[in-house]
């Protein structure tokens, strides 16, 4: 039934209209006397239609006021207009009926305007729905991008709940979440504090619904409702209210969180107002969306755990190698001593044959100790215990020394070992001893695999980054940059098949063929060589042709501040020293922080090194204790008195934990080799 308010004086005329309208299934009342009262009457009565008699005083003002006041309600304002009379405020009203009134025209006009009002209301409602859907869509979109950004299970759940709350504004949610090792957790997110009995009821309900999902089939996860941990999150609110069992009468939505066969949990929402069809779709799509990243997160967790186990295993293996090698060394000492005693003739004269055989034994003892040394080196490299003594050095003397040493040994096989140094070699930042080890390794390999009357050439020269033949590099240099020294060892030996080249850099490998059985070595040399070169930011390349010979070339960067800094950091990270890296973001608003840090901090350690790239300033502080670090941090803050400075300077410390190491590596990546 529509409600109509007639604004007019009490008269036969108005009585007539009221009578007509009341008889046509409408409710029609007459207005109060004064305009003020009329306005408040409209507010209270909320009519669908206001009929204004244009003979009424103040009808113009009233029309304007009423129209503007009821625009939200879509109230239709109609004027009763004397036939033949014109008024200028007609456009403020929604329509008019001429007087004297024809009964049917009046009723018809009123009904049409009632229809208009209803249509307008529907339109408004649709608009609101549309806006809400748009909002939900927006949240959904944001949610999916948020989901993509994390591999943390808890964060994923939180993102899900947050977007559910934004889109559906539920009163209380309960979620059962399955953990890795069968333990399950129960989360309640609520507007107000839930009562104990409600918590139990919610858990029971979710549990039952979960079991219902599988009917008679076995459950993917067994849940123990009794001992379940309840994690509760209540929104801070100034309204003192609680939720009790009555909430179970609210409208609810329930869904499992799963991807294919993988189950992560179930979730249920309650809301005092009923959920619409759109709400259900929205709910389903959010819950569905979280499942996939949850699956990735679970896999990621598994991989992480496997990695930790593998790391341990690797360490164990290295430790084993290291211990065994130490043990092997000890008996070698008396063997060597005994042989020396016999050879010295102090135990009596020995024949020339005996002397030859004892010399053979001695040679093999030193070979064995060489192998043990290799094993130890390898385990040290892997555990990062290998100590490099980097310094600015020139490799020319090392090359000459090695050539001389091998010239003597190679005499037996009549192999010519030559050395060619093109131009003067620039300095490098390297551990000379290790570089010598690399060259010796390569030359002694060449010697092993080169038949009689062959030749071995050692060639050293400087090359530009563009001249490095990256195709033949065994493991690529992270980023080839600047100049390198290239040292090649070229032999006329048996050569290596192309497909076998990567194999020779694996541990304990020698290419299986009848020839190599005659040749000694456990096949660790090249594998160590590669590791040593990695530490020097260098690389090795191999070009070989079967039965013609091989070219083993390695590259060491020519002295370069950036590379020196990175090698120092790498070294500090792998050594047992306590090292800190100070990372300062120089931002224009506090540009002098670098200066302060330099003054305050570098005093603390004499060996510090600095490196600057764009706005990032790095200081490497080897051998820095925790207390020194604390002091630094404090002085930075003290000096600045501004909290934002804390963000500009980050002090990172290398501790025994892997995590810190990773943090530092992240910084290393920033330096951008």
């Amino acid at each position, binding site marked *: 039934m529509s409600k109509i308010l007639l604004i007019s004086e009490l008269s036969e005329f108005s009585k007539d209209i009221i009578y007509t309208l009341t008889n046509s299934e409408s409710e029609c009342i007459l207005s109060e006397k004064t305009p003020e009262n009329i306005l408040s009457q409209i507010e209270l009565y909320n009519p669908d239609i206001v009929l204004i008699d244009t003979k009424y005083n103040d009808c113009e003002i009233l029309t304007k006021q009423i129209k503007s006041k009821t625009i939200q309600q879509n109230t239709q304002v109609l004027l009763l207009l004397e036939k033949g009379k014109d008024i200028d405020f007609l456009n403020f009203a929604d329509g008019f009926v001429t007087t004297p009134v024809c009964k049917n025209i009046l009723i018809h006009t009123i009904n049409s305007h009632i229809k208009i009002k209803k249509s307008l209301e529907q339109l408004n409602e649709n608009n609101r729905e549309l806006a809400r859907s748009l909002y939900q869509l927006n949240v959904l979109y944001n949610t999916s991008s948020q989901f993509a950004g994390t591999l943390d299970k808890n964060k994923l759940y939180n993102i899900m709940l947050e977007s559910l709350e934004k889109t559906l504004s539920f009163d209380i949610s309960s979620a059962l979440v399955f953990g890795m090792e069968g333990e399950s957790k129960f989360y309640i997110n609520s507007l107000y504090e839930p009562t104990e009995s409600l918590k139990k009821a919610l858990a029971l309900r979710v549990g039952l619904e979960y079991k219902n999902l599988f009917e008679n089939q076995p459950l993917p996860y067994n849940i123990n409702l009794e001992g379940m941990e309840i994690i509760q999150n209540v929104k801070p609110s100034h309204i003192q209210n609680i939720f009790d069992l009555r909430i179970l009468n609210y409208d609810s939505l329930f869904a499992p969180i799963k991807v294919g066969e993988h189950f992560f949990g179930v979730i249920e929402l309650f809301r005092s107002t009923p959920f619409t069809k759109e709400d259900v779709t929205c709910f389903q799509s959010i819950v569905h969306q979280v499942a996939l990243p949850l699956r990735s997160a679970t896999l990621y967790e598994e991989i992480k755990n496997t990695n930790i186990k593998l790391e341990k295993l690797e360490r164990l293996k290295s430790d084993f190698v290291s211990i065994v090698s130490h043990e092997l060394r*000890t008996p070698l*000492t008396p063997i*060597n*001593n005994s042989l*020396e005693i016999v050879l010295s003739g102090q135990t009596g004269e020995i024949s020339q044959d005996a002397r030859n055989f004892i010399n053979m034994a001695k040679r093999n003892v030193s070979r064995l100790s060489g192998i043990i040394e290799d094993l130890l080196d390898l385990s040290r490299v892997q555990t990062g215990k290998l100590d490099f003594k980097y310094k600015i050095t020139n490799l020319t003397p090392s090359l000459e020394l090695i050539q001389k040493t091998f010239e003597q040994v190679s005499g037996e096989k009549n192999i010519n070992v030559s050395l060619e140094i093109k131009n003067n070699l620039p300095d490098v930042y390297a551990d000379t001893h290790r570089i010598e080890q690399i060259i010796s390794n390569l030359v002694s390999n060449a010697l092993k695999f080169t038949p009689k009357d062959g030749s071995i050439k050692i060639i050293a020269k400087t090359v530009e980054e563009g001249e490095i033949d990256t195709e033949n590099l065994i493991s690529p240099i992270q980023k080839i940059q600047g100049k390198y020294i290239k040292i090649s060892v070229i032999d006329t030996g048996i050569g290596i098949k192309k497909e076998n080249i990567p194999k020779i850099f694996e541990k304990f490998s020698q290419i299986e063929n009848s020839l190599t059985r005659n040749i000694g070595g456990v096949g660790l040399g090249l594998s160590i060589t590669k590791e040593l070169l990695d530490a020097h930011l260098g690389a090795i390349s191999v070009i070989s042709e079967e039965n013609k010979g091989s070219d083993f070339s390695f590259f060491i960067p020519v002295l370069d501040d950036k590379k020196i800094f990175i090698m120092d950091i790498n070294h500090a990270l792998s050594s047992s020293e306590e090292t800190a890296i100070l990372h300062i973001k120089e931002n224009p608003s506090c540009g002098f922080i670098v200066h302060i840090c330099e003054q305050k901090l570098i005093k603390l350690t004499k060996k510090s090194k600095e490196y600057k790239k764009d706005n990032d300033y790095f200081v490497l502080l080897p051998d820095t204790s925790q207390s020194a670090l604390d002091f630094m941090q404090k002085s930075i803050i003290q000096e600045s008195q501004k909290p934002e400075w804390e963000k500009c300077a980050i002090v990172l410390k290398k501790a025994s934990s892997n995590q810190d190491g990773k943090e530092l590596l992240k910084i290393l990546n920033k330096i951008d080799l």
Partner: protein
Amino acid sequence: MKKILIVDDERDIVETLAFMLKAKGFECICAYDGEEGLKLAKECSPDLIILDVMMPKINGYKICRLLKYDSKYKNIPIIMVTARSQEEDKEIGEETGADEYITKPFEFNDIVEAINRYIK
């Protein structure tokens, strides 16, 4: 005749070393564990000590430290001998005050050269 104390739990090492050093004209005293080594070091006042690191009862570092921080014995040169050759071990050896540090397996000549540096 110069007196050399050899301390090592590896009997074979001690014996071969003693044999060779005797042939070079040194008098050798042998100890086969840390405790005995420390005792003999204090009783016999040797001219030089060859000391193994890993030994039962008292390890070589400790003996070295005990002797080097005692004014009565601190002038006796000590050559540390060990199967461990990592740099950090060497540093510990130097910290404890050892005069020389030699890695096993060693060449006899290395030991003789080292001894000659301290005993003239």
